[in-house]
């Protein structure tokens, strides 16, 4: 009898699991538990500290290379980093090498700069999408305007006040690459290692472990990992956003996975000795 029940439990229709996860996620989103992320990871702290120490007026590149598929994890990171940059009165240049990111960037920068009364062309600039990242990154080493002579609307970039004194990597204080692709690796290889530009990154939780070697050798100054990284950064800048509100759903889904794995393995062990 018990054996049959355990076998049935192990062979449960996967749609029940889908339903369970739906209920868990829906519940957490509709009625957040308000769980507080007590521990700030070292990599997020390093990222925050590095930007915090930049003098006002420094030129920072935001390379936003994610499309809507990874936006729930990465957009809160981008919002938090942009808020921090504007709060520190840094000048921001936005680039992208992901075609699907252009719409997200425009939506983000239609909202965030206004919170800090920042003006397009004076405090920040959005460059157009470029299909070849390696070509753009190599070109920026000698003359940024060789590839970014115009902004996203086709206006002359060089004459904008935000670009004053910016010609190549020597004039760029930091690159923050938030990406669902391999772009942080390209920034490290083509800008960080070769020209000494400080690089930090924001990536999805699943790709976070892959950047460990770059962090260990300080090739990346800091790293935000997934929604947790976004929530941590929001905590550090003291502005809760979608990272903080999404962490409840993430918590419950993670614990559900752990619970399911434990239950299935206990059932398997019992079956073995029955």
């Amino acid at each position, binding site marked *: 009898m018990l054996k049959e029940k355990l076998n049935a439990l192990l062979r449960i229709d996967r749609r029940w699991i889908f339903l369970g996860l739906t209920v868990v996620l829906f519940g957490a989103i509709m009625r957040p538990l308000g769980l507080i992320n007590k*521990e700030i990871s070292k990599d997020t702290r390093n990222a925050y500290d590095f930007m915090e120490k930049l003098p006002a007026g420094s030129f920072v590149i935001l390379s936003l290379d994610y499309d809507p598929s990874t936006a729930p994890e990465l957009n809160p990171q981008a919002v938090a980093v942009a808020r921090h940059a504007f709060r520190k009165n840094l000048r921001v240049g936005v680039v992208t090498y992901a075609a699907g990111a252009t*719409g997200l960037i425009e939506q983000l920068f239609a909202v965030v700069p206004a919170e800090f009364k920042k003006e397009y062309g004076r405090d920040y600039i959005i460059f157009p999408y470029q299909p070849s990242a390696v070509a753009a990154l190599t070109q920026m080493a000698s003359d940024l305007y060789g590839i970014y002579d115009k902004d996203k609307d086709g206006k002359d970039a060089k004459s904008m006040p935000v670009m004053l004194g910016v010609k190549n990597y020597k004039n760029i204080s930091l690159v923050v690459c938030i990406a669902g692709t391999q772009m942080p690796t390209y920034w490290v290889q083509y800008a960080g290692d070769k020209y000494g530009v400080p690089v930090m990154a924001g990536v999805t939780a699943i790709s976070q472990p892959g950047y460990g070697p770059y962090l260990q050798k300080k090739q990346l100054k800091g790293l935000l990992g997934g929604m947790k990284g976004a929530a941590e950064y929001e905590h550090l800048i003291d502005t809760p956003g979608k990272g903080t509100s999404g962490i409840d759903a993430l918590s419950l889904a993670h614990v559900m996975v752990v619970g399911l794995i434990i239950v299935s393995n206990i059932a398997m062990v019992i079956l073995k000795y029955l």
Partner: protein
Amino acid sequence: MKLIKKQIPLAIVLVFGTLTLLTYFVPHKRSVNFLETMNKWENIVAAFAFFLGLINLFYSHYTKISRKADGWGYSIFVYIGFLAIAIPAYVSHGKNMDGSVLTWMGWAFKYIYNPLSATMFAVLAFYIVSTAYKSFRIRSLQAFVLFAAAMFLILGNVPLGQMIWDKLFGWTSYAISDIVDWIMHVPAIAGKRGIMIGIAIGVVVTALKIIFGIERQYLGKD
């Protein structure tokens, strides 16, 4: 014919591959100018590659529809999806926003592309959870090590997991974040670094083989 199909492409790859490689080590003005020209060419060629990919995509789905192959109905949505984004993009001159107002393209991006793309990715979470339940069986020592590492990372990455750890194992002197840090910074990095070095050596060897004409698959069959 052999000259056009084989020898000229091989000569182009040899000359430009070698010169581009040298620019990395030669910080001369002429070297920089050459690299800048190559960058512009690369960007233009990459843009044409998109166009070529689009034609290929349309052609393969057209073939599927005309032959009524399995799942041919889905192929129609390739054209519908393309038009749903391409027409608004053309009408809006490629702009997502007009001031603070969404253009047609912005609307299509926000209300068509955005939710569809996010949904596709979100579905993965459901399959991961059900697969974890149905397939993750600890039948060997290796599987147990994988399980233990996964448990620590999962619990350490979310506040609820940290709370559970503190309740159950708070009496030990180890915080879950210490264990996660050790896993991420010792065994994970060791494994990842080995993979990265292996890939890098492979890339160098493959690049040299292509430059010197030993690897010729990119030229096609004839």
